[in-house]
């Protein structure tokens, strides 16, 4: 008798049992693992009874074991289907329960029929490899039932494989599908198709099923479970915690550590597991104290210690720790959580440095502020002094103007009798005079007029200084007549300097509205300047002509001239370009400033033209007919 195939099945049974145990240990509380466990156990029995059928020495026992083989095949099929329903998440759908219930009913029915009739399997027959199955006339029903369960499983696994976004679920579904497909085809051909063709080999299904289990077991261990359970999450969380964690058992040997712990200490996880924890503590005695404290209090908060790296470097850490109890309340070890405080210490140092720097800065700022305050007070004082000085200056200026004003009035007063008496004398009203007396009186009169002109200039200047406008007493004035009246007065001055005087005023020169006295002074000033600033033997011309809606008077000399840069400056007060010359000529530098003020009060314009030193000067005065503004 050859039982070799029976031993193959026995080996399959053993393998399935080992796999079932390994898997259930892997995660005993996981429902999927439980189904897998059931599924593997059923396969083990399936193998076992097939082996027993082959190896038995009586047909009755072979029949008995053959029927049990089918029972466990059915159970294996149900567990497998359920496993596939769960793994594909079909079990969450409403249709899952009736379908699975239907499968159970059909399973029971098939097994009942198989046990009491020989419609599916007939009594086994002895072959060269031991007892072998013989199919009945309804055998196909059994094949279809089995295929249906497998196809359902394949369908739902395919569905998951297509729809899932999780890479892990895809891989897992693919592995199971591939194994199923190969097994389905191989098993189907060997145990389904060959018997139909009258070829009776030994049943290969049990050992093929064992192979499925191996593949599934691989898929589960390699890719993990499809469903992420809280326990699994907890594992991942522990592994990835951003603090160093160490779980030691009651013998103070390392049981579990997280990745950061191993990495920071420079070890591989495998090098640490099982080691005594004091090995990587810089101060084992201190660590011992923590253990004692844990025994007493159950936990430690914010302790300070130091860990020892593999390269003997020391890592200062903060430690929190607690004794860990399992769900039955029994203490199983201690969990230590370490925080690297090097960085915190460095930060603290840095903060201290910054604070010191800030304090220095603050002191510097305060010092600067003090200086600034002093400087500000000083500046304020100076500014107040300046304001006072300016006020004083203004007061002095006011006093000066008042003085000039009063003085010019006071100076006029004595001039009144001087001019009056000399006029009476020279007119012979006070008796006949000798020629020298008349000449002397003429001199007195001229000098009086000169004095008066100076006084008037001062008076006008004080008005300009105080910002008062020159008031005009307007009336129609013929500037032509004004000039003709002036000629007898200026002619003697020209004669004295041997200057020629030319007067060219149009006969029809427009009469303008203006202040006769002021215009008189204007012409006196301008012509007087021309005479003063023209050397002996020079030439003075007075030209008057009508212009658009006004008149233009030009006083032209061939005297010393003016540099271009001073052409506008000469109209400023107390400005004389060559002071030594002006002293020689007796002016004070007010004439042109007053002249400009008079012209502007009449709404006109005055300007100086000269080609430069030695080229003479032309003063051009434009006056509108309309007169004052």
């Amino acid at each position, binding site marked *: 008798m050859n039982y070799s195939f029976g031993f193959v099945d026995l080996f399959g049974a053993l393998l399935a049992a080992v796999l079932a145990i390994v898997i259930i240990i892997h995660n005993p509380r996981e429902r999927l693992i439980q189904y897998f466990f059931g599924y593997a156990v059923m396969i083990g029995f399936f193998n076992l009874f097939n082996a027993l059928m082959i190896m038995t020495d009586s047909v009755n026992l072979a029949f008995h074991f053959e029927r049990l083989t089918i029972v466990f095949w059915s159970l294996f099929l149900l567990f497998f289907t359920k496993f596939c329903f769960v793994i594909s998440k079909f079990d969450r759908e409403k249709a899952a329960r009736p379908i699975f219930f239907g499968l159970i009913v059909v399973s029971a029915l098939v097994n009942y029929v198989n046990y009491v009739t020989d419609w599916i399997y007939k009594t086994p027959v002895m072959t060269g490899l031991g007892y072998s199955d013989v199919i009945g006339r309804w055998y196909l029903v059994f094949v279809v039932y089995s295929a249906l369960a497998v196809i359902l499983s394949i369908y739902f696994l395919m569905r998951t494989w297509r729809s899932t976004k999780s890479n892990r679920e895809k891989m897992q579904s693919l592995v199971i599908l591939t194994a199923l497909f190969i097994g389905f085809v191989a098993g189907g051909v060997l145990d389904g198709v060959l018997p139909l063709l009258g070829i009776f080999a030994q049943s290969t299904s049990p050992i093929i099923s064992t192979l499925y289990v191996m593949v599934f077991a691989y898929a589960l261990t390699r890719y993990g479970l499809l469903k992420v359970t809280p326990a699994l999450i907890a594992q991942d969380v522990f592994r990835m915690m951003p603090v160093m964690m160490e779980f030691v058992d009651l013998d103070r040997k390392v049981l579990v550590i997280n990745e950061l712990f191993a990495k920071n200490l420079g070890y591989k996880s495998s090098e640490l597991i099982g080691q005594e924890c004091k090995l990587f503590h810089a101060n084992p005695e201190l660590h011992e104290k923590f253990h004692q404290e844990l025994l007493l209090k159950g936990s430690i908060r914010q302790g300070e210690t130091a860990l020892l790296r593999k390269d003997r470097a020391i890592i200062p850490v903060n430690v929190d720790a607690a004794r860990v109890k399992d769900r039955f309340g029994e203490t199983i070890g201690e969990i230590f959580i370490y925080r690297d405080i090097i960085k915190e210490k460095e930060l603290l140092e840095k903060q201290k440095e910054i604070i010191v720097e800030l304090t220095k800065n603050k002191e510097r700022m305060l010092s600067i502020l003090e200086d600034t305050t002093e400087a500000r007070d000083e500046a304020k004082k100076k500014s107040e002094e300046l304001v006072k000085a300016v006020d004083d200056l203004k007061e002095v200026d006011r006093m000066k103007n008042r003085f000039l004003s009063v003085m010019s*009035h006071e100076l*006029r*007063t*004595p*001039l*009144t*009798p*001087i*001019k*009056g*008496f000399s*006029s*009476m004398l020279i*007119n012979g*009203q*006070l008796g006949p005079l000798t020629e020298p007396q008349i000449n002397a009186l003429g001199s007195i009169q001229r000098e*009086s007029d000169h004095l*008066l002109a100076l006084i008037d200039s001062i008076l006008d200047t004080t008005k300009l200084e105080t910002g008062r406008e020159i*008031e005009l*007493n307007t009336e129609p004035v013929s500037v032509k007549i004004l000039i003709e009246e002036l000629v007898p007065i200026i002619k003697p001055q020209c004669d004295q300097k041997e200057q020629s005087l030319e007067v060219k005023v149009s006969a029809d020169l427009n009469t303008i509205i203006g202040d006769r*006295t002021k215009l008189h002074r204007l012409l006196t000033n301008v012509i007087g300047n021309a005479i003063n600033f023209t050397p002996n033997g020079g030439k003075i011309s007075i030209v008057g002509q009508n212009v658009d809606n006004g008149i233009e008077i030009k006083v032209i000399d061939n005297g010393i001239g003016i540099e271009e840069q001073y052409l506008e400056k000469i109209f400023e007060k107390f400005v004389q370009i060559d002071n030594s010359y002006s002293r020689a000529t007796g002016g004070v530098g007010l004439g042109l400033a007053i002249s400009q003020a008079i012209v502007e009060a009449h709404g006109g314009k005055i300007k100086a033209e000269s080609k430069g030193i030695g080229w003479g000067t032309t003063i051009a005065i434009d006056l509108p007919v309309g007169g004052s503004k």
Partner: protein
Amino acid sequence: MRKILLIEDNKPTVEMIQLFLKLHDYEVEVAYNGKDGLQMAPNADLVLLDVMMPEMDGLEVCRRLKSSAETKNIPVIIVSIKADDLGKEGREIGATAYLAKPFDPEKLLSLIRRYLPG
């Protein structure tokens, strides 16, 4: 003989005007301040009035002369170094004419003759 009242505080000026007007046959009475001038004014045919004086200035004197029925028709000629500035103000208070100091005595004479004919 026409009577001219000269109200003026500056003695040399008073002497000059007095002499000049007497030469031209006018009787000249002098008041050295405004108050005296106001009292003497009713007897005068024409008043020559200075502005800057003690006691009462010429403008006030003129105002009073022009507001009194007794004196309002007497011509008043303001003779002042400030005449330039007083044109408008003098006109408003009713002065007859203005003459700026220092003046040509002939101009004074022609003004007096204009307002005191015959």
